[in-house]
């Protein structure tokens, strides 16, 4: 690592703009953790770009003293793809929400992920449309009563982790807004992964959907409701008293009083086959504890590497193109 890089502190990443999220919003914690993660990456401020769509989360770039673009609803992955393909040396982050990424921008999310463009996508999931004041989102549960669903939502929700895995993601993780240590670890892993990194963050909207993730946060319930994934380790939760094992193709909860740890399902984030990661993504409250951590981390060529490899390969093989040759290629004739 170069020694002449300035040592950056979290405060160096704060822009001069006032943060205007509602007091108590989970976004504050994510912003704070991001500012702690970035100085550790030894990337100069000017090499970092935050691109967002539309929604509460998408105000994020305004608060970072890096390059940034607050783009249009749902399209941030497409802007990021154009930028990263043509400027592969930049560190590009996409900040999005459940409505932005999974509803209006579902197509772009899917295609960025399957191309494995080397950007980091952080999806703030609060299961509600906050900026438009409280309509149900693609991750809202069936029955959720909101301004646009007075009798309860009848839409079956999407599972962001399952969606990312189905789109052939190479890095998928989940964390929780206020779990600072864990969130820092996940954002750091995402930054280090080469390829599209997808991180879902359970984020509380204290105005329109307060307490949506309390079962994952409350001291009284979190031990039973959170399954912290650790690579190579058995799936244990409930203060070390419970675990998850496979019964045929289905997971089941067992007590470690009855079942030896070796019989449990072991996590393998680098498994080439995405089945295990997908199975873990389906573990949902209240039937199962919900996993946080890295679901999947595998290597695959990145789109930005490949598009630039083709350009340099063509240049090396055929020589750098001369405009005059190009213009006069094909059959020509001369008029005297």
């Amino acid at each position: 690592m170069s020694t002449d890089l300035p040592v950056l502190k979290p405060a160096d990443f704060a822009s001069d703009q006032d943060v205007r999220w509602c007091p108590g919003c989970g976004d504050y914690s994510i912003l704070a953790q991001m500012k702690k993660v970035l100085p550790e990456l030894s990337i100069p401020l000017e090499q970092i770009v935050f691109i967002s769509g539309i929604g509460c989360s998408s105000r994020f770039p305004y608060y970072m003293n890096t390059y940034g673009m607050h783009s249009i609803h749902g399209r941030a992955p497409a802007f990021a793809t154009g930028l990263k393909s043509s400027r592969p040396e930049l560190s590009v982050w996409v900040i999005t929400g459940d409505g932005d990424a999974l509803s209006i921008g579902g197509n772009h999310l899917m295609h960025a992920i399957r191309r494995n463009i080397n950007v980091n996508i952080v999806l703030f999931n609060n299961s509600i449309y906050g900026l438009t004041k409280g309509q149900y989102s693609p991750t809202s549960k069936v029955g959720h009563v909101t301004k646009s669903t007075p009798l309860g939502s009848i839409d079956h929700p999407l599972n962001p982790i399952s969606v990312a895995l189905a789109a052939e993601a190479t890095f998928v993780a989940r964390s929780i807004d206020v779990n600072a240590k864990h969130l820092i670890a996940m954002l750091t892993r995402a930054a280090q992964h080469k390829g599209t990194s997808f991180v879902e963050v359970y984020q509380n909207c204290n105005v329109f959907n307060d307490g949506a993730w309390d079962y994952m946060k409350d001291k009284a319930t979190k031990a039973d409701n959170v399954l912290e994934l650790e690579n190579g380790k058995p799936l244990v939760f409930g203060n070390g008293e419970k675990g998850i094992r496979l019964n045929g193709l289905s997971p089941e909860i067992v007590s470690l009083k009855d079942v030896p740890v070796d019989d449990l399902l072991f996590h393998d984030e680098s498994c080439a086959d995405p089945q295990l990661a997908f199975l873990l993504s389906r573990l949902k409250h209240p039937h199962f504890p919900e996993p946080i951590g890295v679901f999947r981390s595998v290597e695959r060529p990145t789109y930005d590497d490949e598009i630039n490899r083709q350009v340099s390969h063509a240049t090396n093989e055929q020589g750098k193109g001369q405009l005059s040759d190009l213009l006069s290629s094909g059959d020509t004739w001369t008029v005297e």
Partner: protein
Amino acid sequence: MISTTDQFPPTSKPSESVNGVTVRLAGDSGDGMQLLGSQLTNTSALSGNDVATFPDFPAEIRAPRGTRAGVSGFQVQFSAEEIFTPGDGLDALICMNPAALVTNVEDLKPGGILIVNSDSFGEKDLKLAKLDKNPLEGDGLEAYRLIQVPMTKLTRTAVAETEISTKLADRCKNFFAMGLVFWLYGRDVEPTLRFIEAKFRGKEDVSSANRLALKAGWNYGETTEDFASTYQVPAAQLEPGTYRNIMGNQALALGLVAASQLSKKPLFLGSYPITPASDVLHELSKFKRYGVRTFQAEDEIAAVCSAIGAAFGGNMAVTTSSGPGIALKGEGIGLGLILELPFLVIDIQRGGPSTGLPTKTEQSDLLMVMYGRNGESPLPIIAASSPADCFNVAIEAWRVATQFMTPVFILSDGYIANGAEPWKIPKTDELPPIEIDHPVADGTVFEPYRRNDDLARPWAIPGTPGLMHRVGGLEKEDGSGNVSYDPQNHQKMVNTRAQKVRNVANAIGDLEVDGAQSGLLVLSWGGTSGACRTAARACAEQGKSVGHAHLRWLNPFPKNLGEILNRYDQILIPELNTGQLRLIIKSEFSVDVEGYNKVQGKPFAVSEIVEKINSMLT
């Protein structure tokens, strides 16, 4: 100069010299008419003629065989004089089946040559073309010089020695027709022989069969008594220089690469396949060694957004599409406008609305690109006037985009995109460079929306130390670029963005008039330029006071447009829409304007415009 080979000896028949010829080749979509047409174009251009073409094909890849809907045509005019259109009435029509005959014969001049493949006029063929009786029988075609050639049988015989299947042999009959047409007009076969060799490399039997079919067609002309003479079209008096034949989308691709090199900005194309724009994507994807990156996006929206991302990163960014795609890109283009980043949005127009007529031409997107975005959102718009002009337009648009820091629209259309003409290849060292400055930190507070005299903001790109800044779709505070909801600031920013686009008029030069400076003015834009110029000149030759002016920039207009319009008693605006430029002209200038409008998926015939001018002058 016509070079012949041992295989293709020069004709011993008398040769008649003519000034120009318009030929249409018509057949089934699978008959290879587009290939035949492009070969005839190429060889005519190489022999020094001025050339203009009009390919016309169905939207279906393989429309039902033998039906009228499946007819594919290719019209080419080659001339010893400077020409601007593919011609009106046909001197010769080559028809491969009955459907092609009935859908095209009315465009053939009386006395014109009508060559048909008589082998494809069986009962089944007639039924497919929905004909009760054989048009070759009876006196329906008496006005023409009908020449019936059993092309299928003759081709099969000619290629027999290669022992290829009958199916493959029948696919050679377009080369038979080509041989006959080449013989009739004394065209050079050499480029086509080279084409066959390259195209069918590794398939020696097919290659050789096509060569034999070509030769059989040539010999048929020479030996049969159907043809008393051949026709020669001498070389045109074109400006000295090196030429090549070029299609509009090809010229556009080359112009984009040239603009990229002149500005030293790597080219990034974000595009989604759509007719008739896809060929620009295909062309540019071949030019990787020129530093070109092409991204086939997941949809039209992602295509424009990726281009904006690349523009933010300091690239020469481009997105290409046609009407339906441009409609989808609207929100993204609006963002690009408020971000004040330079990039090009290229609309190869086709018949609309909705999916409309994908393979047919129209000029009906002008109002969409002018006004089709939310909010007050003016953008510069330039339109290409001909296939070769696409090259210049690409460079000019990028020059304006970077000088004024704005997205710029380029309008082309299906007629220009697929049409071809000779192009005088520019000397690259004579093309002026496009100067671009990226700011660097100077110790002062960086203001991303501080403007220069043109009202352009600085293009600070990621990677530049000390200039970190955030852009976005929310209204910007003048200077700082911070989000601002201040009423007076919004007023100021809307006015400033509009003034910036008006300032482009300082960079685009004056409008010039060809012909009379008073009387009747024909005002055109886009691909109708050639027909309008030819028509105006034809009327002027008859002593009428008719001038022609062609608008390259539709927004802003050249500064002297108002003054020119006021000089004329009558103004005619022919457009392939229902009067879109006319609407803008009438709203901007207090002048009476007459429209001549057509939306039939076809370009104007010169005669149509001449007739309209004459009707206005009587």
